[in-house]
């Protein structure tokens, strides 16, 4: 076995067994580089790792984009121009429901990924569907909020604070909407094409995207809404 690498899947199974939590702590692991991790000596990384890394770079650039909107909001939060303050327009109960819907959808998305890893098509589809419905609830709640505010004459052009508020929250809502379209596409692809490697890679990317959206929402409900009602 001096110059012959292990078959990739045998190595993968051994890693699952020795390191069930993926913590990278492998007391009895080999000292040679691990096959497929892309550290040079054992050849290129697995496609799965390369795809995940590439999408991770995109997600980080997306988070940098959101950070610009967060910065704009943080700067403008007091610029109400005599209009309503944040504390007057926030309905904290609705924010609670939105947060619950998005967190639960993250959870069911993760469950669909577990079903994907077990190559179980039915449960993958079921959990993806639940994820999409919870995402839809989130988007509808946000639309309801925007329509109610617009009905009271509270629109983005009213003040600098409202511009950055609608910009930040609306950008996140747009992401969730786009993610929902992607989710529907993935459900159709899993249904028609099954778990071909490229489909699984797309599902991995979709999972990363959906969880990243939840991370951004944590920032929004903390900085915009919860700190808004306190200010």
């Amino acid at each position, binding site marked *: 076995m001096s110059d012959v690498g292990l*078959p990739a899947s045998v190595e993968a199974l*051994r890693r699952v*067994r020795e390191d069930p939590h993926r913590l990278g702590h492998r007391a009895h692991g080999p000292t040679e580089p*691990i096959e497929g991790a892309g550290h040079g000596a054992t050849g290129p990384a697995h496609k799965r790792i390369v795809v995940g890394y590439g999408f991770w770079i995109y997600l980080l650039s997306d988070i*940098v984009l959101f950070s610009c909107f967060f910065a704009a909001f943080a700067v403008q939060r007091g610029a109400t121009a005599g209009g309503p303050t944040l504390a007057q327009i926030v309905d904290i109960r609705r924010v609670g429901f939105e947060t619950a819907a998005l*967190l639960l959808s*993250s959870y069911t998305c993760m469950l669909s990924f577990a079903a994907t890893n077990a190559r179980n098509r039915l449960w993958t589809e079921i959990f993806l569907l639940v994820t999409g419905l919870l995402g839809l609830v989130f988007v509808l709640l946000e639309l309801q909020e925007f329509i109610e505010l617009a009905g009271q004459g509270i629109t983005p052009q009213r003040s600098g604070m409202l511009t950055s508020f609608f910009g930040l929250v609306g950008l996140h809502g747009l992401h969730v909407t786009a993610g929902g379209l992607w989710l529907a596409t993935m459900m159709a692809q899993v249904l028609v094409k099954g778990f071909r490697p490229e489909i699984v890679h797309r599902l991995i990317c979709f999972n990363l995207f959906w*969880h*990243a959206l939840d991370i951004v929402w944590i920032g929004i409900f903390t900085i915009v809404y919860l700190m808004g009602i*306190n200010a």
Partner: protein
Amino acid sequence: MSNPASEPHLYSGASHGQHDHAPGDEPAESAGHWVRNANLGLGFSIVLTVAAFLLAGSHLVYPPAIPVALIVLAIAQMGVHLVFFLHITTGPDNTNNVLALAFGIMVVFLIVIGSIWIMDNLNRNMMPMEQPMEMQP
């Protein structure tokens, strides 16, 4: 010089079925590990979210400290999501992801802290719009 079938003791942790595998194969795994991760992530997230919402609406702590407490809770929950949902680990196949994440966090902090700092400074030092003429000698 050898293969897994002839020296099974070398591969005690590996699968016992000796099938043919192509490089890059991704075998089906049991779902248990992922489900447990999801449950842990959901549990921690619920605790942190409920704590944040309770804290924001109450006077449990010294009121001026509430924003800082909320930010701490948010960062903790982002960490929970990264570990349990996004599977950022210290594993060898994750080194690049962690480095990219560190760079991303640095850029985010530069943008957010820098903007707040610069704009606050401008806000303090800018002449009020109403009285520029009176300030002339």
